[in-house]
């Protein structure tokens, strides 16, 4: 048995305009949201799914949660077919989405968890202890018997996280789980997610907080327009952001030899060179390259007789990579294993 969620050429097309019920037939128009996606989310690891808005992240997660049916392609959870074995798949997965709507406001935290424990058929002998354990995990022990309608947004989201763990899912689908959470609570959640992965849970995470993804994910899939455009570790993906190492140097005064030397350096290394002046009309050189050229640039300028007044290096980020990849052609660019 393969301990993983796997998708094979997964596609989802929403019928955008449907015929009225008295005119049965195919939808009049369709928009592909996910287009031939093949992913692997192994157990015991946090896997990231990144992309800009509308890339198809939520649709993918909702398909894996069995809330949406793929138009074509296939997905399995531990070799169970997502469509044919949906009921058994649902026992093994759970989903937590951002926002605080996913609990019952008129029930207390304990009652909410008890209710969902019943729906997931958590053994009676374990349910009470499981509820106490989860409430402690999300820091709601002090408000267990308070109606959720009295909770703050953060408390509701924490309860929603506890709900998502009630069935000890083998795979957890996290769709923007820290959306709207305060920094300390988001940090605690990241610790919980990391701990779950260490305990063998397979986690699929989408988030707009890329630092969060960088910190947690061993493997990241980047999608654009529903298609896979890159895959790799955070470092591998960051390296894909070509010419994103930015070195900016400001000189005390213009020197002709420096102009020539920096131009030669840019040509030799293939860096992108931009020249200009700052607010005080002092010459400024900006070099963009996949490698950090700060040292080489400084040496070149000083050797050519220039006096550096300011030097700033901006390393590439995962965000640069995601934006660059999303902007690029939709042909898959797979790196890493």
């Amino acid at each position, binding site marked *: 048995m393969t301990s993983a969620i796997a998708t094979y050429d997964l596609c989802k097309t*929403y019928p955008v305009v449907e015929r009225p019920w008295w005119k049965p037939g195919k939808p009049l128009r369709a928009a592909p949201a996910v287009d031939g996606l093949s992913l692997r989310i192994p157990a015991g690891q946090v896997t990231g799914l990144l992309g800009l808005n509308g890339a198809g992240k939520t649709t993918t997660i909702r398909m894996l949660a069995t809330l949406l049916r793929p138009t074509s392609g296939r997905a399995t959870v531990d070799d169970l077919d997502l469509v044919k074995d949906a009921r058994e798949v649902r026992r093994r997965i759970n989903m937590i989405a951002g926002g605080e709507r*996913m609990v019952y406001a008129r029930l207390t935290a304990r009652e909410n968890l008890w209710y969902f424990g019943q729906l997931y058929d958590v053994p009676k002998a374990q349910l009470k202890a499981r509820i106490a354990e989860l409430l402690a995990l999300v820091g709601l022990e002090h408000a267990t018997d308070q109606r959720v309608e009295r909770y703050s947004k953060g408390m509701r989201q924490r309860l929603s996280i506890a709900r998502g763990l009630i069935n000890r899912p083998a795979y957890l689908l996290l769709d923007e789980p820290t959306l709207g959470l305060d920094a300390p609570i988001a940090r605690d959640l990241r610790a919980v997610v990391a701990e779950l992965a260490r305990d063998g849970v397979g986690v699929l995470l989408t988030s707009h907080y890329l630092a969060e993804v960088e910190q947690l994910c061993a493997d990241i899939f980047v999608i654009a327009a529903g298609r896979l455009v890159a895959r790799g570790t955070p470092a591998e993906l960051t390296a894909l952001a070509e010419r994103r190492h930015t070195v900016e140097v400001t000189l005390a005064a213009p020197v002709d030899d420096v102009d020539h030397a920096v131009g030669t350096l840019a040509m030799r290394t293939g860096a992108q060179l931009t020249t200009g002046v700052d607010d005080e009309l002092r010459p400024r050189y900006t070099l963009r390259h996949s490698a950090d050229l700060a040292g080489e640039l400084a040496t070149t300028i000083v050797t050519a007789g220039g006096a550096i007044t300011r030097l700033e290096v901006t390393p590439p980020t995962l965000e640069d990579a995601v934006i660059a990849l999303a902007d690029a052609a939709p042909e898959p660019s797979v790196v890493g294993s």
Partner: protein
Amino acid sequence: MRHALRVIGAEAFKQHRRIFGGPLVVFSMLIWPVLQLATTYYTMLPLLETPGIGQRWPVAAEPVRLLAFLAAGAFAYMFYFSLVQSAWHFSFERISGTMELLFLSPASRFALVLANGTGALVQNTWLAGCFAVAAASASGSLHVAHPGMYAVAALALVIPAVVWGTFLNSLLLFSRDSAFLYTLLDDPLWFVAGVRLPLFAMPFAIKAIGLAFPLTSSLAVLRGALLDAESLSGVAGPLGLLGILCLLLVAGTAALLRIGEARAQRTGSMQLY
């Protein structure tokens, strides 16, 4: 089966915490029906003076019997309408965002809608049920052929009502535009099911429409068994029709759940509201 029972218990508990003792329930399920009953009774009371009405409609010969007839109608109607209300409430789960959590879980969908209807029925009607039993006992208006007919009447009311509620839940759960049913199944149902008037007084078309609703046959059994001392064979007709309607409604529920969930999975409408 064991899991389904746990789902039913959990859903009933949720209903209890959400609606038990709420002013809406007290007003819509007790005070409002009692006021409607009083209005109907005092509207019809002058008709008792009509010469010869007792021959055409024996119930109208005595005010107590007329009141018992109308009260039985109001009580049975309340059972059914409580389920319309419950289904309407259930459809709000789509808006509150909890509906997809139900469908994310491995719980039996049928058990969920069944439990929601059953839970609502108990929560909504226990108060009026106690009131009705006390009123019927005190007024001495009950005429029962055999003690077993109490059970027949109770089952003929409760089982079809639960099945009706299950069907409505499955209908409203997947449809964003079925709120009109709340209105359609209020006064029009009261009329076509013979809550206020005996079915024989209705035109054929209304009678035919009325017989398509289980409330009509439930009422016929309830009144026959508890007010007219009918035996089991005397209410066999409406009981048989109730059985057929229940089977159709169960089949309809199963189909609606299957079609509704498949459609929601195809269109992504589970999160739309």
